[in-house]
C-alpha cells in the first residue's frame, strides 16, 4: 500500500451561510498527481485555503503525512513540506524576481537575527541558493527578468515566478491553483513536463486546480476530484471521470 501524503476528511467551510466547501473527502497518495476541477465558484480555491490554514475550516480533518494540521497556522503546515500557489498570483511585489525565489527555501542561516549580523556565515549558502534559483528561472524561461521587480511582470510571467517560488521551497507536496492560466501553450506543456519530471526525481506529490476539464484530462493525471457547488461530485481515475463527463455536463449544464 502506498503512503498517503495528504488526507482530507469531511472538510467543510461556510461563508455566512453559503456552503463553499461541503464535506470533501479525498486521499492524495505519495508521488501522485491529482487534479481538482470544477466550474467557477465550486469551492476549489476555498478547499486549498482551508487545507493550508489560510482560512480556518469549520469542520473536518486534514492530515499531512499522517499529521493532523487542522487549526494550525499556515507556516507550520508549510514546514511539514506542503507549499501552494494562489490563484490570483501573490508575489511580493516590491521584491525582485530573484528575491521572491530566495524567501521560500527552509533553514537559511541568514534569516536569524544573530547570523544576519555576520554576512560571511550565510554567503556561501546564499550563493548556492542563487544558483538554484537561476536554474529554475532558466527552466521557466524568465531568467532575463531576475533583477526586475515582481510588480513589473506580466500576468503570465507572475504565474511562472510563483511556480518557481514553489520549486524553490523543497516542499514534498505542491498545491497549484490554476498554475497555467494565462501562460502560453508551449510553456504550459513544458511546465507540466517539468512537474512530472520533478515528481519522479524528487518524489513530489502534486495537487493541481484546473478550470479547464478537457485540458486536464489530456495531461496524464493519476486521479481527479470534481467539485460543484462546494460538493464533491466525482472522485476517481481520469478514465472514469471521462466516462462520467456526460453526467457532469448534465449536472452543470444550466
Amino acid at each position, binding site marked *: 500500500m502506498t503512503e498517503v501524503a495528504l488526507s482530507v476528511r469531511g472538510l467543510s467551510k461556510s461563508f455566512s451561510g453559503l456552503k463553499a466547501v461541503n464535506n470533501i473527502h479525498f486521499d492524495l497518495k505519495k508521488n501522485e498527481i491529482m487534479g481538482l476541477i470544477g466550474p467557477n465558484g465550486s469551492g476549489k480555491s476555498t478547499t486549498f485555503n482551508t487545507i*493550508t490554514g*489560510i482560512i480556518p475550516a469549520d469542520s473536518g480533518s486534514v492530515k499531512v503525512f499522517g499529521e493532523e494540521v487542522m487549526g494550525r*497556522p*499556515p*507556516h507550520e503546515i*508549510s*514546514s511539514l513540506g506542503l*507549499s*501552494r500557489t*494562489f490563484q490570483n498570483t*501573490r*508575489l*511580493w*511585489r*516590491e*521584491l525582485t524576481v530573484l*528575491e521572491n525565489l*530566495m*524567501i*521560500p527555501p*527552509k533553514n*537559511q*542561516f*541568514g*534569516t*536569524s*537575527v544573530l*547570523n*544576519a*549580523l555576520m*554576512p560571511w556565515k*550565510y554567503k556561501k549558502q*546564499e550563493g548556492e541558493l542563487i544558483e538554484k534559483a537561476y536554474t529554475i528561472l532558466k527552466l521557466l524561461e524568465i531568467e532575463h527578468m531576475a533583477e526586475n521587480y515582481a510588480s513589473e511582470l506580466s500576468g503570465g510571467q507572475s504565474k511562472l515566478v510563483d511556480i518557481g*517560488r514553489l520549486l524553490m*521551497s523543497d516542499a514534498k507536496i505542491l498545491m497549484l491553483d490554476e498554475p497555467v492560466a494565462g501562460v502560453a501553450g508551449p510553456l504550459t506543456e513544458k511546465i507540466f513536463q517539468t512537474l512530472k519530471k520533478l515528481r519522479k526525481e524528487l518524489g513530489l506529490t502534486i495537487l493541481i486546480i484546473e478550470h479547464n476539464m478537457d485540458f486536464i484530462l489530456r495531461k496524464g493525471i493519476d486521479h481527479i476530484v470534481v467539485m460543484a457547488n462546494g460538493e464533491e461530485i466525482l472522485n476517481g481515475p481520469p478514465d472514469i471521470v471521462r466516462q462520467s463527463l456526460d453526467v457532469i455536463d448534465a449536472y452543470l449544464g444550466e
Partner: protein
Amino acid sequence: MKLDWEYYWDEVKKRKFFIFGFFLVVLLPTMDTWIFLGPSVRTAQSVGIMPDSVTTSIIIQKAAILVIFAVSWDLLSGYSGQISFGHALFLGMGGYLAVMIREGLMIGDQEVFPGMEEQLVDIGGIYFDLSVIEAIILASALIAVFALVTGTIILRLKGPYFALVTLVLPLIAQILVTKIWGDFTGGDGGLQITSQLIQKPPGSTLEGLDLFKLQIEQMTTVILTFAIVCVAIMYLLARSRYGLVLKAIREDEQAASSSGINVSLYKVSVFVISSFFASVAGGLLAQVFGSSTSALFESERSFEIIIFSILGGIGTILGAIIGTFVLFFALSYYIKDGFVDLQTIEVLIFGLLLIIIIRYQPRGLINADPQLRNSLFFGVIFSFLMAFYDTGNMIIASTWNPAPILQKYLGQGERGFFGMDLFKVQGRMVLYFIVGTVIGYYGPELAQKIRLRLWGVWPSLGTFDPPK
C-alpha cells in the same frame, strides 16, 4: 559672439536638481562671503541667529541620535510594514529609564534602588562615565523585554488598528509620567541628569567656555560612535535574509506564511529590535538635553522621523539616514536656529516638503532621479565638511584634523574651500560652483574632470560647453 539663450536655459534645466541641492546645503553656509549679503550674515552669526561651532556640534549630535531613531522606525515600519505612529514611546521610555537606572530611584524618602557607581574611563583622550552608557544599554534591554510583551499583544492588530494603538500609547505614557507617576518621574520638570556623560579630564587646565567646547566636541564623538554602531547593526539586519523576509511580510503576509515564514515571530522580533534602538536614542537624547522630560513622548518626535524617512525613501535604511541628515541637519541649521521663536516653522516646512515629495517622488529621494540624488548626497558630504571646517577639531579630537589639511590642499578662502568662481579655461568660460576656489587652481581641463569624478558629481556638474 551671439548668445543662444535657449541653449543656456536647457543646460540649466538639465542641472536643475543639482542646482537645487547645491542651494540647499552648500550655498547657504557661504553666504557670509558674499559681497552684498556677507556683512549681515556675519552679524547674524555674531549675535547667534545663525549657528556657530557649538551650535553646529549640538545639531550634529541631535541629527545623529535622530538617525538612530529614524532607522529603527524604518526597520519596523518601512521593512516589516507595521506602521507605527508612536515610536516616541520608546524614545521617552529609554530617556526616563536610563536616567533612573543611572541615578537611582527614590519614591518619597524611600530608596527603591541606589543607582550605579561612577566608572570613569579614558578612551582616546575622551574622559567619560562608562556607567551612563551601561545604564542606557541596560534600560534599552529592559524596554526590549517590555516591547516583547506589548508587541505580542498589539502586533495581532492589522494595519490601521495597529497604527492607532501606537498613536495612543505615547500619549498615555506622557500622562503617566507627568500626572500619575510624578513622584518619581519628576512630573512636568522631568528627571534632571546630575552625572554627566563627559567628564573633565584630570589635570586639565581648561576652564569655562573652552572646557564646555571640549566637552561638547567629545560628546559628539561618543554620540557619532553610537550612531555608527547602531545604524551598522540595523543596516546589516536589513540587508540580510532577515530584512528580506520582513519585506516579504510587508508585501503579502499570507503568501509569506504560506511559504513557511512565522509571520508573528518576525513581527515581534523586529518590534523588539526596533524598540531597543529607539530606546538607545532616547537615552542619548536625554544626555544631550540634560534631562528626561515628557517632551520625549511628544507626537512631534514620532512624526518628525516618519517625515524624514519618507523623504529619504521608506524601507531603505539609507533613505532614513539621508532624509534625517539632509532635513534635520541642513534645515535646523538654517531654519530652526535661524528663527528661534518660530519653532513651528520647522514642522510647516517639513510638512510642505512632505507634500511635494509624496506628489513628485513618492518613493523618496533615495529612489529619485539620479541627478537629484547625487546632488543631495553631495550636499550631505559638504555639510559634513562644513561642520569639520566650522568646528575645527571636532570629531577626532587631537589625532586627525581635516580642516587645515583640506585648506592646505584645496586652497584658502575666507571660509575655506567653498565659493563660486567664473573663469576661463582654454578659451571657454567655465562656471564652477562647488569647489570653486579649489578648481580654480587647476589649470588643465583633465585635472578638473578627474577631480569632479572623484567627487562623484561629474554627470550633474559637467563642463559648460557653450555652442560654437
